[in-house]
């Protein structure tokens, strides 16, 4: 069936859609209020930098050396140390979640040290149920241990034997602040919500309210119908995207190194896939509640879990890793983090852009295919 587009009809439909958007408080909340709230939650609420870990300490040895080491732990800005009487007490504290791990300085700590060539054994127990935190415990204790070693050597007038000194320098995010990569990632989530959730409702709404029947009985063509749903929500999405970037840069002080033009192109492609998915669900399910549920499961959850925004893709099982290649949000997260933190790195952006284009074409094409000019 040929589907010509009459500009007059398309304009009339878009205008109608715009009126509905402007008058519907829920679309305004989803497009403009929700993003700001989410940005602040992600900007301040979620912080993957671990500061002040709660750590238990059992000093079985009370020698000056042991105390000196303990001072080093107490002095670390990353640790909040609680002293305990014995191992059992600390184990209990860890089970109850009062501490994230604990250090035991054994009775023979000083004695072992004093032996020629002896190393002092130190027990570090970390709560492995949260591997991320457990790593922090290990690293921070290790850091304090190193500091103590250096101190000790200096006091004895020895030069410490380090062969290599490691001086970490973080590229693209020098202060290694998680916010700087969480915010661009969270914009992906917001765009997913706007793209899929908002549009999942609009066609289903016309079916539920019986207005679709009236539209289908008029000379409207399939292409006009589809475009009239895509264009206004595309405009809404892009507006929201630039508002999010503005809030991120101005209020949350996230550096932005890329170009706005690239942001617009990549953002448009991602919105295309999101809007397409939403419209597809709405068209197929014809029921607002079901469509919104499906959109949440098909777009929002994968974007949150599998886009690499919070959970590192490389630490996922291989099957899941392979699956993440199918998720448009994955490419948009990469693209957004690149645009924000590294600028216009073309190989990355092109690759992501191409995948997003393919996803957008796929979903919009499928919607076009599923859009019927009849009721069946």
């Amino acid at each position, binding site marked *: 069936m040929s589907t010509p587009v009459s500009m007059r009809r398309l304009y009339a439909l878009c205008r*109608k859609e715009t009126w509905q958007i402007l008058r519907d408080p829920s679309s305004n909340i989803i497009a403009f209020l929700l993003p700001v709230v989410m940005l602040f939650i992600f900007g301040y609420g979620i912080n993957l930098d671990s500061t002040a870990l709660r750590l238990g300490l059992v000093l079985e040895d009370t020698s000056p050396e042991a105390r000196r080491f303990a001072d080093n732990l107490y002095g670390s800005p990353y640790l909040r140390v609680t002293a305990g009487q014995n191992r059992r007490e600390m184990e209990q504290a860890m089970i109850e979640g009062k501490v994230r791990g604990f250090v035991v300085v054994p009775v023979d700590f000083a004695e072992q040290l004093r032996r020629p060539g002896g190393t002092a054994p130190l027990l570090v127990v970390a709560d492995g149920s949260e591997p991320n935190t457990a790593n922090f415990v290990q690293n921070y204790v290790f850091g304090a241990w190193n500091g103590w070693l250096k101190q000790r050597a200096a006091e004895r007038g020895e030069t410490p034997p380090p062969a290599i000194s490691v001086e970490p320098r973080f590229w693209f995010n020098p202060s290694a602040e998680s916010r700087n990569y969480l915010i661009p990632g969270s914009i992906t989530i917001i765009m997913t919500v706007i793209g899929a959730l908002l549009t999942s409702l609009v066609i289903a709404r016309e079916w539920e309210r019986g207005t679709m029947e*009236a*539209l289908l*009985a*008029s000379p409207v063509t399939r292409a006009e119908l589809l475009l009239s749903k895509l264009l206004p929500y595309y405009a809404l999405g892009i507006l929201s995207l630039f508002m999010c970037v503005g809030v991120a840069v101005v209020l949350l002080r996230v550096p932005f190194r890329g170009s706005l033009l690239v942001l617009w192109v990549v953002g448009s492609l991602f919105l295309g896939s999101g809007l397409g998915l939403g419209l597809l669900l709405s068209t197929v399910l014809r029921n607002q509640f079901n469509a919104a549920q499906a959109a949440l499961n098909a777009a929002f959850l994968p974007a949150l879990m599998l886009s690499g925004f919070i959970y590192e893709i490389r630490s996922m099982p291989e099957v899941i890793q392979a699956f993440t290649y199918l998720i448009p949000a994955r490419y948009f997260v990469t693209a957004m983090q690149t645009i924000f933190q590294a600028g216009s790195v073309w190989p990355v952006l092109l690759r992501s852009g191409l995948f997003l284009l393919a996803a957008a074409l796929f979903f919009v094409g499928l919607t076009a295919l599923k859009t019927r*000019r*009849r009721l069946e």
Partner: protein
Amino acid sequence: MSEALVHLDAVRKVFPRSKQPALEGLSAVLFRGRITGLIGPDGAGKTTLMRLMAGLLAPTSGRIQVDGLDPISDPAKLREFIGYMPQKFGLYEDLSVMENLELHADLRGVLGEERITTFKRLLEFTDLSRFTTRFAGKLSGGMKQKLGLACALLGHPRLLLLDEPGVGVDPISRRELWKMVHELVAQGLAVVWSTAYLEEAELCQEVLLMNDGKLIFSGQPQELTSRVHDRSWQIRGVTGSRRQLLARALRRPEVMDGVIQGHNVRLVLRPGSAPLNLGELDAGPRAGLVPVTPRFEDAFIEALGGGPGGDSALAQKLAPVPGNHDTVVEAVDLTKKFGNFAATDHVNFAVKRGEIFGLLGPNGAGKSTTFRMLCGLLTPTSGTARVMGFDLKTSASQARQQLGYMAQKFSQYSNLTVRQNLKFFSGAYGLRGERQRQAVEGMVEIFKLHPYLDTTPDTLSLGFKQRLALACAVMHEPSIVFLDEPTSGVDPVTRREFWTHINGVVEKGVTVVVTTHFMDEAEYCDRIALVFRGKIIAAGTPDQLQDQVATKEHPDPSMEDAFISLVEAETQESSS
């Protein structure tokens, strides 16, 4: 003027996943300059036929031609000259009257000078000029209907399809719409008006009478009505129970159909039958037989094969319920509030054993809320509901054992077969083993469910769904039956059958509490309570309520007349 516009030729429509065709072998011709009424009960296939003509559905087989065009192969041209108003009017409720009109004008290419004059004409015609900036969602039902009509009229349609335009609209607006549509057909339009109200048939120049997907009659309504000419009678001056008289009359072979009308019993005789012998019917010494004007409904019942007769197979199966005329259902100051809104407001009544007690009122009056409290499904905000002496607040489960409940909405499982539903519900009421098997078999026989046992309820017609629901409610032979709008939306024959069952079981001593919004059904009840805005505004026997409003000019008011006057009196009282 009577030039054919639509040709329907052996049109058949079967929806996927449904065994029964929605339309079967339908052939008809629709003319310009006429109102063609698409008449039939819910589920008859009226909307399907409308959608087929509008090109919104494709027929499974058969041919449709609208002004020489096939709606499926040439949809674009067809849409240029079809005006279609779907059920619920198809308006955007968050757009204003003018914005709705502008949208449809743009879609149909009504522009420039033409647009200005058309808008002016339509707004005047529909009397909406004062409301152009009001949102469509804020309009009354009647105004929405007019706006829907105005939108459908944009772009000079030659065929105007109106799907149930009278639903949810007050009687005055409905009358106005009829006037408007008559003006339109005078200009040469072909109008199709679908409705479940049989009274509206007489306003059409041409009717297609449909039932269960089949065309029963096509032609002028008078032609159908004339078939029952000279066969409609009223028995006036009845002494004694009219309900029992009706049952006796319906048992006679010469009586095709009968209903209670106020103080009288209306009967339609079979063709060629001898005049009725009143003496044999035991109608009382002062009873007389008077010929009356036949109604479209009489003819419709005959076209469907006549009424169901006077005997209830259900009642024959029941054992008589022992006991005297004690009060078995009681509401004392029963009140249910949802927030500030009192859905049921200090309601008092008592029902005695073996009575039919009716709660009558328009939709939303609070009938169902009262009902649910009596069945222990809702907890009253204050007041007491008692069934067989059990307070439903404290001993709901004992009370529930005694009663059968048929909900307004179909509440059988649509993914179980009819047989499985019957088994499940009999089991839920505690029937086991041989007793359960007998109960299920009995219900299948009484309600003629044999052909449908292995299908799921959603493929059944509404009438059979209601039969199944009633079967599930009475299988365990309860001594009290609550029926919430059992006849809503079902065809007139099934409606009569239901009342035959109700009358039958009551004769056996079962107590029936029933809600209905059909005023004429009140005549079947022993006592009724009129419910309006959560309150009982009047209660008594149908005769008492009718006598209450009878005047010299209007000595024999119908139940509807009585209801309207009582509501008017009530609203005047509360406003003064």
